C-alpha cells in the first residue's frame, strides 16, 4: 500500500514535470538567443567576422515603395490583397563592371527606379531617362517584380517586368536606354504574377521565360466583376493564376509551351527558381506556392515532370513564399529554402529547408525538411531569403526578411484571419466575407533573421548583433558585391517601406573569389550570353561548393549574376570547374584568391 502511494506521488511529480517542460524548453531557447548582443561593429567583427550597416541614404537611395490601391470593393481588406509588389533585382545593365539595382513600385502612377552604380559608393536613379520608370500607368497594372536576362544574346541584360497587369519586356539598347518589345514578343495581355525567371530549359542557347501566376489572369484587380477572387482554400487552393513557359524562338518572339512541356498548375505561385538539382545539365524548376504544396518539375530538356510528392517537397501544404538554392554543406548538392508563416500560438508552419537525403540522387533524389535541425525554421511571416557567404568563411549563410502588415502595433487581425481561413471554400473564396482590417497589423514589425552557417549543420541567428535591426515589412532580398570589394552586400525591398542597402564589412583574413561568366551563344549552339544556368564548382581545402548563375530566385528577386565564394583563412584552391549550359566543361586550375575571374565560354 505504501509502495502504491509512493508510485502515485511519483506520478503526481511526473505530471508537474510534464507541465513544466514547455517552460524549461523556452528558457533553454531564450538562453541560446541571449547570445545576440546589440549591434556593435567591433564586437560583430570579432565574434561573427562581419558587420552590416544600412547606408541607403548615404548611397543616394531614398526609395519608398508604394502599395497598390485596388478596386474599392476590396477596401475592407486592402492591406492584405495589396500586400506585395516590392522587389529588387541586381543587374549590370551598362556592362561597366559595377552592379546596379532595379526596384519596383506598385501604386498606379508610381515610378520604378534603376540605381546606376556611380563607382564611388553612391547610386543615381536613371530609370526615367532610360525609359523604365513610368511603367505603372493607369490601365496597365503595376509592377510586382523584375528579372534580367539577355534574351537576344547581344551582351546586354534585358528586362522582364512582372506585373499585376500587362507584363512588359524591355530590350536593353546597349545600356543607353530600353525599348518595349512586349507586343512582338507574344506575351499575354494581362496576368497577375509575382514570380518569373529566365532559364534556358531546352539548352538551345536562348533564354526562355517562366511566369507563375498568383491571382487568376482573368481578374483585373482594379475593375472587379466579382469579389470571388480569393483562394478557395488556405492550404489546398487551386484557383490561382496559370503558369506560362515562353520558349524563345530567337527572333524576338516567344512561344507559350507550358501545356506542351507538362506544366499545368493553377496553384498560387509566389516564388519560382531553377537549378540543375540532379546533375543532368538541365535546369529543374521549383515552385513555392502560397495556400498549398510546393511543386518540383524535373526537366529532361524537352518536358517537365512534376515530382513534388515523389521527392518529398510537395506533401505538406504551407504558404510558400520563397525559393532559394544553396550548397549549405559544401557537398556539391543544392538544398532548397522555402519560407512560410509562423506566428506564436496561432500558426506554426515553419520554413522548409529541403536537404537531399543521403544516398539519393538523380531521378530518385529525395528531400527531407531539416529546417528545425539546422535552426532555420522559425522566421515569423517569412518572405524573401537568399543564401550567400556573408563573412567569407567558406559556408553559405542565410538572410531572411519577414513581416506581413505593420499597422496598429496594438491590434492584430490574426483572430479574424484564422476565423475565415478555416471556413468553407464558398466563404473563404469571396473577399466580401472577410472582416475589415480596420488598421490592424498582421504579423507586423518583425525582426529579421540572418543565420550564420557553421558548416556542420547548424545555423545561428546573428541579425541583431551584426546590424540588421529594421522591422519593415520585408519582401525581397538580393545579394551582390555592390562595390567590388569581395564581400556580399544585402539589398532589401520593403512593402510600403524604404529600400534598404546593408553594406557589408568583413573582418580581414577570410578570403574570397568571384566569377563573372559569359556564354557565347551563336546559331543555337553554345550558352546564353547571361550564362544563366552555368555552374561553378569550386574545390579548395578538401571541400567543394557549387553555385549556379540564376535568372531569378528568392521572392521577386534576382541576385547579381556574378558568383561569390567565401574561402575562409589560408585557402588553397585546387580548381574551379565551370559547367556551361551548353554542356561544355571548363576547368580553371589553382586560381588565386581575392579576385574576380571573368570567364568566357570556350568556343
Amino acid at each position, binding site marked *: 500500500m505504501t509502495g*502504491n502511494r509512493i508510485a502515485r506521488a511519483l506520478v503526481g511529480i511526473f505530471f508537474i514535470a510534464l507541465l513544466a517542460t514547455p517552460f524549461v524548453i523556452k528558457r533553454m531557447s531564450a538562453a541560446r538567443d541571449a547570445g545576440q548582443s546589440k549591434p556593435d561593429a567591433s564586437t560583430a567583427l570579432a565574434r561573427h567576422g562581419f558587420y552590416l550597416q544600412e547606408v541607403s541614404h548615404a548611397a543616394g537611395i531614398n526609395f519608398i515603395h508604394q502599395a497598390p490601391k485596388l478596386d474599392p470593393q476590396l477596401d475592407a481588406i486592402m492591406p492584405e490583397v495589396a500586400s506585395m509588389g516590392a522587389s529588387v533585382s541586381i543587374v549590370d545593365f551598362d556592362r561597366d563592371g559595377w552592379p546596379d539595382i532595379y526596384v519596383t513600385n506598385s501604386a498606379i502612377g508610381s515610378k520604378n527606379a534603376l540605381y546606376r552604380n556611380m563607382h564611388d559608393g553612391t547610386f543615381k536613379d536613371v530609370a526615367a531617362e532610360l525609359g523604365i520608370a513610368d511603367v505603372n500607368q493607369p490601365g496597365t497594372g503595376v509592377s510586382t517584380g523584375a528579372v534580367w536576362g539577355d534574351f537576344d544574346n547581344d551582351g546586354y541584360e534585358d528586362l522582364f517586368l512582372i506585373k499585376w497587369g500587362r507584363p512588359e519586356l524591355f530590350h536593353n539598347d546597349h545600356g543607353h536606354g530600353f525599348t518595349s518589345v512586349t507586343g512582338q514578343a507574344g506575351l499575354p495581355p494581362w496576368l497577375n504574377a509575382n514570380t518569373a525567371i529566365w532559364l534556358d530549359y531546352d539548352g538551345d542557347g536562348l533564354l526562355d521565360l517562366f511566369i507563375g501566376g498568383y491571382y487568376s489572369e482573368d481578374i483585373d484587380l482594379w475593375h472587379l466583376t466579382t469579389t470571388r477572387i480569393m483562394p478557395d*482554400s488556405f*492550404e489546398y487552393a487551386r484557383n490561382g493564376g496559370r503558369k506560362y513557359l515562353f520558349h524563345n524562338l530567337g527572333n524576338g518572339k516567344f512561344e507559350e509551351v507550358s501545356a506542351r512541356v507538362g506544366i499545368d498548375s493553377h496553384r498560387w505561385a509566389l516564388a519560382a527558381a531553377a537549378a540543375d538539382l540532379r546533375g543532368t545539365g538541365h535546369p529543374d524548376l521549383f515552385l513555392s506556392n502560397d495556400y498549398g504544396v510546393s511543386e518540383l518539375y524535373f526537366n529532361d530538356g524537352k518536358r517537365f515532370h512534376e515530382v513534388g510528392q515523389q521527392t518529398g517537397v510537395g506533401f505538406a501544404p504551407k504558404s510558400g513564399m520563397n525559393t532559394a538554392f544553396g550548397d549549405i554543406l559544401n557537398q556539391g548538392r543544392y538544398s532548397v529554402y522555402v519560407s512560410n508563416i509562423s506566428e506564436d500560438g496561432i500558426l506554426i508552419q515553419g520554413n522548409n529547408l529541403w536537404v537531399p537525403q543521403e544516398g539519393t540522387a538523380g531521378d530518385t533524389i529525395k528531400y527531407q525538411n531539416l529546417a528545425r535541425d539546422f535552426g532555420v525554421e*522559425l522566421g515569423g511571416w517569412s518572405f524573401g531569403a537568399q543564401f550567400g557567404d556573408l563573412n567569407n568563411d567558406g559556408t553559405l549563410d542565410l538572410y531572411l526578411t519577414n513581416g506581413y502588415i505593420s499597422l496598429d502595433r496594438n491590434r492584430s487581425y490574426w483572430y479574424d484571419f484564422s476565423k475565415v481561413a*478555416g471556413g468553407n471554400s464558398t466563404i473563404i473564396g469571396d473577399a466580401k*466575407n472577410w*472582416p475589415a482590417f480596420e488598421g490592424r497589423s498582421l504579423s507586423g514589425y518583425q525582426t529579421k533573421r540572418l543565420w550564420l552557417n557553421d558548416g556542420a549543420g547548424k545555423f545561428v541567428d546573428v541579425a541583431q548583433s551584426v546590424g540588421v535591426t529594421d522591422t519593415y515589412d520585408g519582401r525581397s532580398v538580393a545579394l551582390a558585391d555592390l562595390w567590388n570589394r569581395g564581400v556580399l552586400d544585402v539589398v532589401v525591398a520593403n512593402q510600403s517601406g524604404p529600400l534598404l542597402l546593408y553594406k557589408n564589412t568583413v573582418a580581414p583574413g577570410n578570403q574570397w573569389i568571384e566569377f563573372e561568366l559569359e556564354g557565347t551563344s551563336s546559331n543555337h549552339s553554345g550558352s546564353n550570353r547571361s550564362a544563366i544556368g552555368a555552374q561553378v564548382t569550386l574545390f579548395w581545402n578538401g571541400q567543394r561548393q557549387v553555385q549556379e548563375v540564376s535568372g531569378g530566385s528568392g521572392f521577386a528577386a534576382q541576385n547579381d549574376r556574378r558568383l561569390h565564394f567565401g574561402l575562409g583563412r589560408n585557402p588553397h584552391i585546387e580548381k574551379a570547374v565551370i559547367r556551361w549550359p551548353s554542356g561544355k566543361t571548363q576547368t580553371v586550375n589553382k586560381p588565386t584568391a581575392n579576385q574576380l575571374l571573368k570567364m568566357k565560354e570556350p568556343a
Partner: protein
Amino acid sequence: MIQQMRAPALPPQAPAQSKPKPWFSLDNRYIAPAFITCILLVGHLSFGILESYQKTLLAIVTSIALELVLGQIFFHKWVHPASAYISGISVGILLRSPAFWPYALCSAISITSKYVLRVKGRHIWNPSNFGISVMLFLAPDTVATLSIQWGNYLLPMLVIWVLGSVIIWRLHRFHITGIYVASFIAFALLRSGITGSPWLSELAPITGPMYQLFIFFMITDPKTTVRSKRGQCLVVFLVALVEAVLRLFQIVYAPFYALFMVGPTAMLIEIWLDSRRANAAKLAVAQ
C-alpha cells in the same frame, strides 16, 4: 477531446446507456477508434493532412504506453488501449508543430491528467482537451492546432457530417451535437450584429474540419459530460455561450478553452450534487 464512445476504462463506471440495437457487430468501444482512423486515413490519402506519420505515431504510442503503465500503477490492471488510442490520434491530428516533442508531451499530459486530476474517482477534464489547451497556453511558440487540414471544400465536409451524425445518433448523443450547432449559429449571428463582421465570417469556423472533430468527438465525450440529457444540453449550450464570449475577445482557440472551462465546472457541480444527494440519502436511512 476525442474520447466519446470508448468503453469506460476506469472506475467508477459511467452509467449504463440504453443498449442500441446492433446494426453491425462492432463493439461500441471500437466505433470511435474506427471512425477517427477512417477520418485520418481518408484525410491523409486525399489531402495529405499529416505532415509526418512519425509525429502521429509518436502521439499514439506515447498515449498507449502511458495508459498501460498508469493503469498498472493505479488500478493494477492492463487498461484497454482504445481510449488512449483515441487520445493519441486526436493529438496527432489536432496538434500542429514542426517539432516532435510537443506530440509526445501533449499525449503524456493528456493521459496523465486522467489519473492525477480526479475528483471522487472521476476525471473531470477530457484528456486531450486538457492536453491541447495546456500546450496552446504554455507553448504557443511551438504549437498550433489544426484549422484547415482537409481543405475548405464541401464534399469532405458533408461526408464527415453525415457519417458523424449517423454514429452520434446511434450512440444517443446527437442532441449534444445538435444543441451545440444551433447555439453556435445563433451566437454567430449575434456576434455579427455586435462586431459588424460579415455573418458568413462568423459562421466560417463551424464549416471547417476542426469543428467537425469538435462537435462529433470532443463535446460528446461520455466520461467528461454530465449524465442527464437535460444537463448535457445545458452544458453544451454553455460551452457555446462561453466560446461566443471568448470570440468577442478575439481568442483564436475559443472552443478549446470554452470546453476546458465549462466541462470540468459542470462535472464538479454534478459530483457535488451527487455527493449531497448521497449524504441526504444516508441521513434519511440513519433517521
